[in-house]
């Protein structure tokens, strides 16, 4: 095997595939990148068997062949080469990386050890605007759990709704729902948030083909493909949580609210909530800690409700993450009472909602 390529092209391909390589892989061989050179292309595969990235780059091929190299080492080595043209060549069980002075030798791994990964099946894929999809993923994955003891909550439910493709995630303390209008999926599934978060840094492009198969979700573009094994199990029935109407609501400036919650967070902790008093003047935020001190601040806003005022308490981090995920200058916060879930949306937009469970005080 011998190829010549531009350093930047090569670095990009390896970096993308490297995103799928876990630091604690089940099989040692999965620390490696599978590389195939043929037809004027270098095709690179990285996988932890749950998330698999396949990408390719046009190169000048002097000799075809396949090999496996340690992912981190290869990726870092290419990135550190001087810019310009570099060559890759297999010599006696090693890969030589050379160009404009430096030369790395990289030990190959045994290609026979690499597991057989089924080729991604793009059947039934639908085209989705890449930017919108990335935005939607970023908005809902904040609400996904990272607790491996509750695997179902580490996923994002992708399903069809009345208005299009719907993405839903919850860690049971909050729930984020985003609709992408006019997208009709071929199926539904629970996609690990960990894999979805890699989309932007791997194969995202202006148009992304999305297919949800029985066992995996496949995202593909001109940059390659990202396949993610689905989580098995039933996602919580989130629809029953969404009340038909909220009798009380307040509209607030997003940045002003974020700043205020940020200040209150200096006092708050995971088990010390911030308290919101919603009323005519807007929202008064207070937080008090016996051992440290407190903070109080009025965020002015427009309140409309059946109750004269509502007191409700939230975990400060969950609240600010929800406000941050909401896209718009004005946000609308809807509440029923102190013990019912509250909903945050962008004022005047209904394609995203962030449902937040209160803290009972």
């Amino acid at each position, binding site marked *: 095997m011998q190829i010549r390529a531009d350093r930047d092209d090569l670095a990009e391909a390896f970096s993308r595939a490297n995103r799928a390589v876990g630091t604690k892989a089940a099989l040692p061989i999965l620390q490696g990148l599978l590389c195939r050179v043929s037809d004027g292309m270098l095709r690179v595969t990285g996988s932890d068997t749950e998330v698999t990235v396949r990408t390719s780059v046009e190169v000048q091929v002097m000799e075809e062949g396949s090999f496996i190299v340690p992912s981190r080492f290869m990726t870092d080595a290419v990135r550190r080469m001087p810019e310009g043209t570099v060559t890759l060549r297999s010599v006696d069980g090693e890969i030589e990386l050379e160009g404009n002075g430096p030369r790395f030798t990289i030990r190959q791994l045994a290609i026979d050890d690499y597991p057989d990964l089924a080729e991604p099946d793009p059947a039934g894929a639908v085209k989705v605007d890449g930017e919108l999809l990335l935005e939607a993923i970023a908005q809902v994955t904040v609400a996904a759990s990272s607790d491996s003891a509750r695997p179902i909550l580490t996923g994002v439910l992708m399903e069809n709704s009345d208005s299009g493709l719907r993405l839903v995630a919850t860690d049971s303390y909050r729930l984020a729902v985003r609709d992408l209008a006019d997208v009709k999926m071929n199926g539904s599934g629970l996609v690990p948030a960990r894999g979805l978060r890699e989309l932007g840094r791997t194969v995202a492009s202006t148009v992304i083909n999305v297919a949800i198969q029985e066992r995996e979700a496949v995202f593909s573009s001109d940059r390659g493909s990202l396949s993610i094994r689905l989580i098995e199990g039933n996602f919580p029935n989130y629809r029953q949580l969404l009340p038909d109407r909220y009798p009380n609501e307040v509209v607030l400036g997003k940045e002003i609210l974020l700043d205020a919650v940020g200040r209150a967070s200096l006092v708050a902790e995971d*088990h010390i909530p911030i308290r919101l008093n919603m009323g005519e003047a807007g929202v008064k935020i207070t937080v008090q800690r016996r051992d440290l001190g407190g903070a109080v601040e009025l965020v002015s806003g427009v309140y409309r409700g059946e109750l004269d005022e509502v007191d409700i308490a939230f975990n400060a981090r969950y609240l600010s993450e929800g406000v941050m995920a909401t896209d718009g200058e004005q946000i609308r916060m809807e509440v029923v009472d102190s013990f019912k879930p509250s909903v945050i949306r962008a004022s005047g937009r209904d394609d995203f909602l962030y449902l937040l469970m209160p803290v009972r005080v």
Partner: protein
Amino acid sequence: MLAGMAEPRIAEPILHVDMDAFFVEVERLDDPGLCGRPVAVGGKGRRGVVASASYEARASGVHSAMPMVSALRRCPDLVVAPPRHGRYGEVAGQLFSIFRSFTPLVEGLSLDEAFLDIRGLRWHYRDSRAAAEDVRARIRADLGLPASVGAAATLYLAKMASGRAKPDGIYIVEAGSEMSFLHGLGVRELWGVGKATRRRLSEMGVETVSELARIPAPLLERRLGKAVGAHLHRLANGVDERAVSPYGAAKSISAEHTYGEDITGMEWLRAELLRHADRVAWRLRRAGMSGRTVSLKIRFSDFKTVTRSETLADATDVTRDIYRACCRLLDRAGVGERPVRLLGVAVSGLEPEDGPRQMTIDSGSRWEDAADAVDEVRARFGRGAVAPARLRPGRSGGASRR
């Protein structure tokens, strides 16, 4: 500025209150016939151990944690009373109410001992002795029980002082005399120095606290490990910055049982874990607490002991959550078919039930409702009235009490 009106200050503001032979004294309260006789509370079975011994029994060499068989050998007149933990818990509840009527800064170490920070009572008592006397008098008047009180400027000196105060007395490590008090002690009297540490210190030629204080901290850390070494160095030099924490992180609620005959096999172990989990959950609810960390303790027939723990996403007081965590821990412990002598389940990281509580989308689940119903039945008909189906009496599979 008014001259001569300096704020009063209690020089030794930490009290450690420790009940004398608590279980025995509660038994005597309910059965005055036991007064004046050597009494031990504990199991009567082959593997029963002494949980609490009266001072009459101690005079014959009986002490707690001793096998009951040996205790009876040393003291043939010994009256053995089976433990009634529910009753002790009830009295302990009243005891802690008394503590909290003095100060909110109460940190319980167990059912029958606690630290009280009485700094805030500086206008009420001229010194720590007056406060200690009042605490003892209240316990005596309201509960009819003897208590010993130690007072000092720091927690651990107060704890050691109460040991000196026993039985039924007061001992004060006066402010300024801490070093002379400490340096008169042997290292074995330091709270938290166990057998292993004592042996290592002994190998270094250290027997007394004054010798310990002279060892440079880095050397101690090398010999005993960083944390223990640094800790002991500070203690030996009278440095203890820990404050009384009302919701101490170390507090836990547990249930454990030493089996008359070893138990073997996963099915049986799981059934016993369910029993323990149910008991711990019930105790948590009674105490108005819930906890996030579940710990499992297993002692094998060869006395090798393993503990495993897991922290849950949410604090719980529900049998099912605790039991499920226990099963995961049991799987991780790799027990297999090894005979087990003791099983214990503990929940720590406790939070008061009425403290702030993050609600979840499945809040108010059916399991919490079920727990409430169980509590209602037990309150009316006793603890044995309702139990998980797998534990029902007579069911095969070894789950029934032996």
